[in-house]
């Protein structure tokens, strides 16, 4: 057996984006010894790509905003499938978490009277997103990173975790390798927090980086945890569509928040046609009212005008764009136009600096002069590991999860800006609970050496196999299946085919072979990522097949209506001896007080 280095901790945090960093800080400040592991260099995690802002009812721009309105918007946006307790905790605590970031050195954009400026976003009744231009994620990750480093915790950069080591029904360690030299590492820990983000790489067109291979989802699933709501994959309405190399790259919703108008090739502002009837009253009736709203938003002041139709929720805008293109009203490159060029160029450059650079440098397009071309791109996992709302504990003792890898908070559709706030609210809760859990255990637990040896053998196998499947080919085939059969619109036939195809790929993936040794070898990395993506893909397809209705981001052509009976159900998957079990579990009920809040006509509604 190859010797591995051993680093024991009270709390091990896997993933160093917003949730992982916030969890690590909290656990460390609670007195635990903390190790933080990340697949990339510190500060490069996916949070860095978040652009638009962090949602918190600070009420700096519109004083009518409260946690109640934020809670209601989140539940309405999630089509009532959210875990109501999580949505409430999130809405109540995010203002404090944002102010805490400021105390830790973050420098948000300011209102005229010097307070944190907030911008409007889809599905939010009031301007609610604290932001820094369109690089809010960078500000957040740098602030948390500096704070984490200052606490003196250990950071293990460029380490991939491939196995959780269970012993007697508890998680006792994590096993993996250092990417720089390929050496194995064992992290015995009393508590482990998964903060590994999502799985957009199951699709070819995605805004996600290579890191998003569903590692935490798959690790937890194999350890016996439950994954819920996996059928809900967010397709962000606006990714770049041209040139080919940048297809899928995110175009922030802040473009629409600042007044961006969507038009089809005929010049029609088509979003008016796609507003759901029961929400139409929340949106501007015509271009004049939308324009008045944009003028107020640009000046950072409240208005009685209702928001433009482009600020409908993401699931709805994605379906609209997809339908326009499908019905022949798309642009030359298969997208629609997103136009912000009617606003003063200086204003656009100041509010959307990285979008300006991105289009200028990657597509030769000056967004202050002409419209962008955009189309849907795989963006976010609403589904994830089932957690306790208050403690972020999974169903496996010793294992916690926060951020995108956790399920429940966003229901069937996440509102823009609610992810960054999710990270800091539940990252903090996970860190506190993990530290408390660790404090109750007497010493570092015994780690089953047989399990460790098994993990090591699995690491070495693909390099020893003389001939086998190429992980790059398998990924390409998986992405083709997921994109064509488990995309924005779904049918029973497509989903059954996808489940079968993913099954065949999984069998082929048992015999992957790569060359080139263990030091920084991307082909070897891909072997383990692909195994995780296969688990996640099967979970998405099976959950999507089980939910026989359309709700939020899950649109079934064969069941086009939203069925109230399904609001009472979260689909869950768990590992069984003979494969993946799919079960219907009861949706946690809303309290009477929550019902009252949801029924309120929102301030901006």
């Amino acid at each position, binding site marked *: 057996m190859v010797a591995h280095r051993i680093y024991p901790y009270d709390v091990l945090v896997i993933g160093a984006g917003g949730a992982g960093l916030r969890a690590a800080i909290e656990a460390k400040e609670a007195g635990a010894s903390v190790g933080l592991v990340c697949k990339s260099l510190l500060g*490069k995690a996916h949070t*860095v790509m978040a652009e638009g802002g962090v949602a918190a009812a600070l009420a700096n721009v519109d004083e009518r905003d409260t946690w109640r309105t934020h809670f209601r918007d989140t539940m309405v946006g999630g089509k009532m499938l959210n875990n109501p307790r999580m949505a409430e905790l999130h809405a109540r605590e995010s203002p404090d978490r944002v102010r805490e970031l400021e105390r830790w*050195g973050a420098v948000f954009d*300011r209102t005229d009277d*010097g307070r944190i400026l907030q911008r409007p976003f889809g599905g939010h009744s009031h301007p609610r997103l604290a932001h820094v231009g369109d690089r809010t*994620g*960078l500000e957040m990750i740098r602030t948390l990173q500096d704070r984490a480093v200052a606490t003196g915790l250990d950071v293990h950069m460029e380490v991939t975790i491939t196995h959780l080591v269970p012993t007697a029904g508890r998680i006792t360690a994590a096993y993996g390798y250092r990417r720089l*030299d390929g050496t194995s590492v064992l992290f015995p820990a009393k508590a482990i927090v998964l903060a590994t983000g999502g799985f957009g790489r199951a699709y070819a067109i995605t805004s996600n980086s290579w890191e998003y291979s569903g590692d935490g989802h798959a690790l937890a699933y194999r350890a016996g945890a439950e994954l819920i709501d996996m059928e809900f994959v967010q397709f962000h309405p606006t990714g770049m569509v041209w040139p*080919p190399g940048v297809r899928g790259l995110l175009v922030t919703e802040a473009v629409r928040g600042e007044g961006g108008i969507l038009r089809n090739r005929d010049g029609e502002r088509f979003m008016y046609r796609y507003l759901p009837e029961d929400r139409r009253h929340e949106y501007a009736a015509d271009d004049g009212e939308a324009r008045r709203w944009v003028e107020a938003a640009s000046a950072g002041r409240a208005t009685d005008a209702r928001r433009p139709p482009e600020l409908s929720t993401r699931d709805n805008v994605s379906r609209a764009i997809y339908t326009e293109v499908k019905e022949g009203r798309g642009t030359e490159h298969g997208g629609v136009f997103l136009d912000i060029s009617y606003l003063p160029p200086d204003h656009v450059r100041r509010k959307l600096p990285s979008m300006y650079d991105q289009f200028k440098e*990657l597509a030769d397009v000056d967004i202050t002069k002409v419209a962008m071309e955009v189309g849907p791109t795989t963006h976010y996992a609403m589904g994830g590991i089932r957690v306790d709302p208050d403690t972020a504990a999974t169903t496996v003792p010793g294992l916690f999860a926060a951020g995108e890898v956790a399920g429940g908070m966003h229901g069937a559709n996440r509102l823009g800006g609610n992810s960054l706030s999710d990270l800091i609210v539940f990252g903090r809760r996970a860190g506190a609970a993990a530290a408390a859990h660790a404090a109750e255990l007497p010493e570092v637990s015994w780690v089953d050496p047989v399990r460790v040896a098994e993990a090591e053998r699995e690491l070495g196998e693909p390099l020893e196999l003389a001939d086998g499947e190429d992980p790059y080919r398998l990924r390409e085939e998986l992405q083709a299946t997921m994109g064509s059969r488990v995309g924005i619109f779904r049918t029973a036939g497509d989903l059954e085919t996808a489940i079968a195809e993913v099954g065949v790929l999984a069998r082929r993936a048992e015999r992957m072979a790569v060359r080139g040794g263990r030091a920084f070898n991307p082909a070897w990395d891909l072997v383990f990522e692909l195994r995780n993506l296969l688990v996640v893909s099967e979970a998405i397809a099976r959950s999507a097949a089980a939910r026989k209705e359309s709700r939020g981001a899950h649109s079934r052509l064969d069941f086009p209506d939203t069925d109230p009976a399904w609001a009472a159900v979260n689909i869950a998957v768990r590992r069984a001896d003979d494969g993946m079990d799919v079960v219907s579990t009861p949706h946690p009920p809303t309290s009477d007080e929550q019902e009252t809040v949801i029924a309120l006509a929102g301030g901006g509604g």
Partner: protein
Amino acid sequence: MRSIRLRVFRGTPESEPSFAEFDVPAEEGMVVLDALHWVQAHAAPDLAVRWNCKAAKCGSCGAEVNGMPRLTCKTRLSDLPLEEAITIEPMRAFPLVRDLVTDVSWNYEVNRSIVPFSPPADPPPEEWRWAQQDVDRVQEFRKCIECFLCQDVCHVLRNHEIERPFMGPRFLVRTAGLEMHPIDTADRIDYLKDEGGIGFCNITKCCTEVCPEHIAITDNAIIPLKERVADRHYDPLQRLWRRVRGRRGRDLPVVGAD
């Protein structure tokens, strides 16, 4: 379809360095990183390349393209002369790991040696009020994506021109962001002069030229910090005060040391 030729550095510290050539089919709008990904998927699956976002937001994919430090994710093939092969090499200021990947951990050690953000002990009961124009400058510094291209191009670090360590442009920018932060209370001036070695920078502005975030590193960060150091250390009254107060600070790590 037209194809372009890449000449890619391959090797480890133990192996004989060499260049491998690949012909890659070119698509409209393709960037250098796209071409490297094509090579991984079709010709050299184990080619080591560090990257993450492919959107110029994370700063992972720095390399030297035809000798210039660049982010490969925003270097378009159409902006390079394609008659000859495009040469891609790892950043030269840092120890080689494999192929295009270098060990940049030294930067993280330098970062740790800087006194962290230090807010006042008694925050205001409600919240701070800062005018936008007062935080514009700090926000410019906080745009840094830590690609370390400025460290790579800095001749003081690149050619190891000095025996003692120099923190480099990236960390002068970070320190400037802390020193000019509206509520930071710490003092890093002596650190800049002594451990940080700010005097070694002779403002050739190479760092500013390669910054993908267009931060005016030399003009807005380094020169104002140099002025603060000069004000304290070359003003007779300040010198006296410093002698009374004593010194503090930590040594910088040495490049490439484990």
